[in-house]
């Protein structure tokens, strides 16, 4: 039974750890499906995390924090759009620039406003998103198997966790069942076809980037207002890049993206859980190795185990009317 409880606990933290990845991954899905590569997911998440925590602690409201996180993240997404859609700049350069600006400005503004070494003040109850207990969770807690799964694994997460997982079918529905989704996928494959059909390529891509901004904003808010009790500098710690890796791994499909992010989350959770404890047959493994494991596996998985991942054909190329 101890093993079972341990597994449930690992899976529980798998869910918590994969949420920011999943939100960022879906965010990237919207922009890349529309043909705009977005390496700036990391920066937008960071901006969202900072803006969310700062607004929440100043206005004492979690929802105002979330709103501010989304607004600021969308603003950065629009900057990316302005550079790479309107002015046809290099999308990678623009994305990297956004990451730098985000990393620097969050620390400077944090220090100027709160004088806590770049941190935001610790969030008080009411300023962060609390765990939601699903109905009946306490009642069936002691039922074997089902009890722990329901009350530990499914219940007791914040609203943002449920939102993130709800975004998976929603994104699938938008992409494959709506007019907007059809056009969005088309503009990522052949923008000239969209243009000659009488639809504005630029406006369509801007809308895709706004979707991206909203989702990275939520991802950032999750980091600073759920997982952590405030903003810490560079708290995204490469999650934006892992999300991009997961996106390729998922071949730009929403349901695959969920499984990819759960896998990366699981590796992370297992690494944390197994730190310091001896493994069967191998013995004690250095902490650093366990920490590196998710990244090593990422490389291996991306290098050999996903088959051919075909990106949207017009990805990375600014649209210019041919002469």
């Amino acid at each position, binding site marked *: 039974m101890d093993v079972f409880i341990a597994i449930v606990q690992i899976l529980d933290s798998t869910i918590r750890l994969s949420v920011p990845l999943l939100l960022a991954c879906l965010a990237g899905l919207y922009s890349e499906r529309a043909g705009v590569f977005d390496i700036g997911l990391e920066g937008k998440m960071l901006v969202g995390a900072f803006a969310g925590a700062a607004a929440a602690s100043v206005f004492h409201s979690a929802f105002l924090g979330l709103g501010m996180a989304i607004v600021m993240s969308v603003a950065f997404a629009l900057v990316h759009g302005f550079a790479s859609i309107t002015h046809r700049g290099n999308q990678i350069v623009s994305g990297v620039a956004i990451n730098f600006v985000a990393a620097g400005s969050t620390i400077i503004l944090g220090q100027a406003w709160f004088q806590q070494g770049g941190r935001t003040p610790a969030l008080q109850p009411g300023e962060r998103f609390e765990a939601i207990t699903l109905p009946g969770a306490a009642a069936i807690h002691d039922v074997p198997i089902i009890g722990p799964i329901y009350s530990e694994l499914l219940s007791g997460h914040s609203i943002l966790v449920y939102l993130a997982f709800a975004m998976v079918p929603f994104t699938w529905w938008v992409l494959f069942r*709506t007019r907007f989704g059809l056009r969005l*996928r088309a503009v990522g494959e052949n923008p*000239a076809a969209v*243009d000659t*059909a*009488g639809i504005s390529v630029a406006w369509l891509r801007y809308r895709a980037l706004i979707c991206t901004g909203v989702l990275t904003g939520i991802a950032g808010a999750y980091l600073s207002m759920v997982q952590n009790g405030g903003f810490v500098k560079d708290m995204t710690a490469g999650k934006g890049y892992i999300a991009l890796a997961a996106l390729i791994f998922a071949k730009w499909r929403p349901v695959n993206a969920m499984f990819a992010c759960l896998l990366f989350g699981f590796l992370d959770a297992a690494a944390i859980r197994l730190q310091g404890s001896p493994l069967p047959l191998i013995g004690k493994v250095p902490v650093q190795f366990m920490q590196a494991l998710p990244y090593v596996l990422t490389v291996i998985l991306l290098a050999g185990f996903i088959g051919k991942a075909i990106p949207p*054909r017009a990805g990375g190329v600014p649209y210019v009317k041919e002469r």
Partner: protein
Amino acid sequence: MAQAAIELIGINKSFGAVRANRDINLEIARGTIHGIVGENGAGKSTLMSILYGFYQADSGEIRVGGKPASIKTSNDAIALGIGMVHQHFMLVDNFTVLENIILGAESDALLKKSIAKARSELERLEREYGLEVDPDAIIEELPVGLQQRVEILKALYRGAEILILDEPTGVLTPAEADHLFRILRQLKDQGKTVVLITHKLREIMAITDNVSVMRQGTMVATRETSKTTVGELAELMVGRRVLLRVEKGEAEAGAVKLAVKNLTVKDSRGVTMVDDISFDIKAGEIVGIAGVAGNGQSELLEAISGIRHAVSGSVMLDGKPIDLTGKADPGELRDRGLAHVPEDRHHVGLVLAFEENENSILGYHDDPRYLKGPFLNIDAIMADAKDKIEKYDIRPGNPRLKTANFSGGNQQKIVLAREMEQDPGVLIVGQPTRGVDVGAIEFIHKRLIAMRDQGKAVLVVSVELDEIRSLSDRILVMFAGRIVGERGPEATEGELGLLMAGVERQEAAE
């Protein structure tokens, strides 16, 4: 004359210093097929793009159905009943036919309803015009001819009364082109107006009611097709008399330069594309290989020029074998005097992002003439490039210009100049004039015959039957990977056409 579907009055359009359209006047009668001919860069496509709202004219007036129209975007053009089939299809390759058809014209925010509506509408269009296509097929799995049909259906679905087709037969096989013409006639019978942009004069003669000729951005003439000739149109296009069939003397064939024996080649999927082929080419003759595209000609060229492995057989160059297992690289063959002008100049023949002078020595860049120690001798390369530009009349004559900015005909001249100026013993040319205009075709044909008269062995592979008949001293016809017949240059088009279709295979195989 019937009522005008479209009137263009005084249209001007400049791109920077280039005046693509100058004071164009054009009237297209309703219910007719109207051809617009002109060389590449004459401004045909620009004019049609203005009509379709892709570009905006600097000045001038457009009238549709007698009423002045303001066409600022493609949406405006669609609303006025103008549809366009672009030269490069505007389709999303991994979407289905239905998804492509509704894109931008969805009737509902949810796809389900839009697709259901489109499906029944499509069935009606298919019945009405005989345009059959599987609505659920993925575009990239359809042959080119069907993809084009989807483009036509797309325009009709949007209620097009006026259909513009830009170089529609460039990518089609002769049979597909015939089918397209039948469709266009049917559209005309139903009262639609068709505008056909092309540089192939035979097509104009075959199908149009009226024809307008453009040259260097101006509209030089409009004729009733029945009252003009190919010769007159060619002259109007180029601005001087053009020889449609170059004159040449008898071939004086010498020793065998290239001997192909029992050559068998498979493509990357493992399908046998060249099946036990034997032939030889002598010095001082042009051998033409005719055939419908996809009957093994590409693979044959690639094997001989050292790009593709052969399964079995041998190729002798000047009496010495070429290694066909892939060890002979094209560079080695070049050194042995075999020059190759590839079929696909964009992907194989040129690096489009390079400057003209760089492409003019590509593959020969390690020749001591172009080197100064370990470095490129830029002065020598530039002088060489200028020399070729002059000799081959490559325009614009700027060796520093990016190759992508040259027209198709001039790009082809760059490749030809590079290969011919190496003075090879054997010259292999794939599709010498694909996408090249009349004036340049004449030039290229003259050059090829000059090579022959200098005693070179020349192999020409082309899907243009006229070209094969005009150039070749001997014609080989390929069908399904085999040579199904050999004929002299006097062979009729009908005779060759039957061979190309594999009809006389039994008698001809001998």
